[in-house]
């Protein structure tokens, strides 16, 4: 088996897809770092101070003023109210929610990437794993070896997991190195409040806890890794079912994007919470944002995603071991 995995890694590295993914991420990091730096600079200019308390206070007031507007939807109002409550909580506990530094940037970035960017990167790898063999025709060579088909597929799946772990690592490393150039490399020990629970549109701070930022990051990356594995598994299934990589990617892309759209508009469609794409924004449970659909919790999302992945994995093996190859 280990030899088979080595084979798959050889192909993966030979194809240079990881390199492409790394480059894309590096470019995006640079862009976002620049944007973030600009934003901070602008705030500083506007407020004339670097004191985070001032900034946070100002943010709260600004949000309160938005709440006063009659034109905003109820869901958005709720989201804003929760945000205010959270910021106020940080302020009351005298903890800076955005201690300047690369780790903080990373924290914000992973929270924003978990729903679309990371799944996309993973998809680029996963959607290609089986279907490229089909379109290249090499599947005929692969399946005429004295190796059972399930072992071949398993070696590919293990490679996928390794690649996902690697992508998440590169994501963190690049984010840290690139943003650190601007924001500095300190801040691993900065305290972060986690454990907010949103219930009935209200922020419940009863079970919050303070953890150092590095631990928070480890948790967030763990979740991002999990989401990426799930998305990877689904892409993997498509890769088994579809002959062309492009078609597989297209289908997955549509699902992912529909997920981000749905998350913003399904609050009244209860059953949508069983769709995998609505559950992808999983780090939002760490930060305590209101979930897209009332009643969704971290446990719920993890369970739903696990079920989707398990079914996809089963189908992949079921189909692959029986498929006629023409």
């Amino acid at each position, binding site marked *: 088996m280990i030899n088979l995995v080595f084979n798959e890694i050889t*192909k993966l590295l*030979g194809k240079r897809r990881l390199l492409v993914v790394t480059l894309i991420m590096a470019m995006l990091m640079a862009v976002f770092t620049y944007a973030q730096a600009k934003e901070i600079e602008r705030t500083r200019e506007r407020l004339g101070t670097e004191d985070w308390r001032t900034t946070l206070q100002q943010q709260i007031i600004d949000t309160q003023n938005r709440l006063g507007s009659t034109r905003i939807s109820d869901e958005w109002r709720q989201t804003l109210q929760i945000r205010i409550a959270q910021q106020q909580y940080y302020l009351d506990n005298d903890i800076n929610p955005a201690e300047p530094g690369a780790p903080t940037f990373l924290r914000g970035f992973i929270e924003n990437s978990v729903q679309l960017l990371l799944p996309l990167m993973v998809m680029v790898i996963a959607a290609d794993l089986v279907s490229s063999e089909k379109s290249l*025709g090499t599947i005929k*060579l692969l399946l*005429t070896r*004295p190796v059972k088909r399930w072992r071949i597929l398993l070696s590919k799946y293990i490679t996928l997991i390794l690649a996902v772990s690697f992508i998440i690592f590169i994501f963190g490393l690049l984010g840290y190195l690139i943003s650190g150039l601007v924001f500095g490399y300190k801040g691993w020990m900065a305290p972060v409040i986690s454990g907010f629970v949103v219930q009935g549109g209200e922020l419940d701070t009863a079970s919050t806890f303070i953890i150092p930022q590095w631990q928070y990051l480890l948790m967030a990356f763990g979740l991002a890794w999990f989401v990426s594995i799930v998305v990877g598994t689904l892409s993997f299934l498509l890769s088994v079912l579809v002959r062309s990589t492009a078609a597989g990617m297209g289908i997955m892309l549509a699902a992912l994007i529909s997920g981000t759209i749905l998350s913003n508009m399904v609050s009244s469609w209860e059953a949508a919470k069983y769709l995998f794409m609505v559950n992808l924004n999983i780090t939002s449970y760490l930060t305590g944002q209101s979930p897209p659909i009332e009643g969704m919790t971290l446990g719920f999302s993890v369970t739903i995603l696990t079920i989707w992945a398990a079914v996809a994995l089963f189908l992949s093996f079921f189909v692959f071991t*029986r498929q006629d190859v023409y």
Partner: protein
Amino acid sequence: MNNNMNKEITLSVQGLRKTIGKKEIIHGIDFELHRGEVFGFLGPNGAGKTTTIRMLVGLIQPTAGTIEICGYDLKKNFTEAMENLGCIVENPELYPYLSGWENLQLFANMLPKIGIERMNEVVELVGLQQRINDKVQTYSLGMRQRLGIAQALLGRPKVLILDEPTNGLDPSGIREMRQFIRFLAEQEGLSVFVSSHLLSEIQLMCDRVAIISKGQVLQVGEVRELLGQQERLLWKLSPLEKGTAILEKHTEVTVTEEGQVITAYVDGHQTGLWIQQLVEAGVMVQEMNRQVPTLEDLFLHITGGETID
């Protein structure tokens, strides 16, 4: 090569059927391969050649029937069966972004106990030493074909299945390939299964041939034997009527429009007697040819007019 070796069965196919949807496309195919022989597989497009080959190498599951490779059932003992089989299905599609050596490394990893020595051996065998470290995407078709053969031979298989091995090669490449296949069968004792649409190829390199049409094997036999049935003698006689009359006493005679007389081929002694009689009766034998038919003729004869292409 002795007779005993010749009888050892390396690949046996029995009652092979394949149904896709509701349509049966392979209606029960049987044949056997012996050690050290080159076996031709001949049929027009759409006859089921490709489907059959893919069933032989495990890419398609047969609906019914058994395939045994060196005594191992392909379905029940896939791994053991495949250890004895090397194949190229259609074009040798390799990983273009890897070098030839890396490609071989991948295949070696999937075989039990194949080391660098064996890899070097096959590379040398197909003559790719110079370019083995170049990326496959820079290879010509002929080189890819060789690398394909190298990977097929890597595991020291007893059966080699080649789908259209001379496809796309230039004339000298075709000749080389033919010699190579003969070499593998005669010197290395492999059973080589070759499908080809080039009839002359089959004729030149195969010991036995199976003729397939519409999902059925029409005939299996030694190439020489099958051809023998179709051998003819062509005569040019003067005067024509008198000569024809004499020959008609011994055999069936056909006269062509050009005035050529065609009889079945008989052994040399018999032919000598006929000539003697003709000469004694004052018929001049201007010309006499022994005609070996092409497989095309044979195929036309067996299928009753269906052409290969």
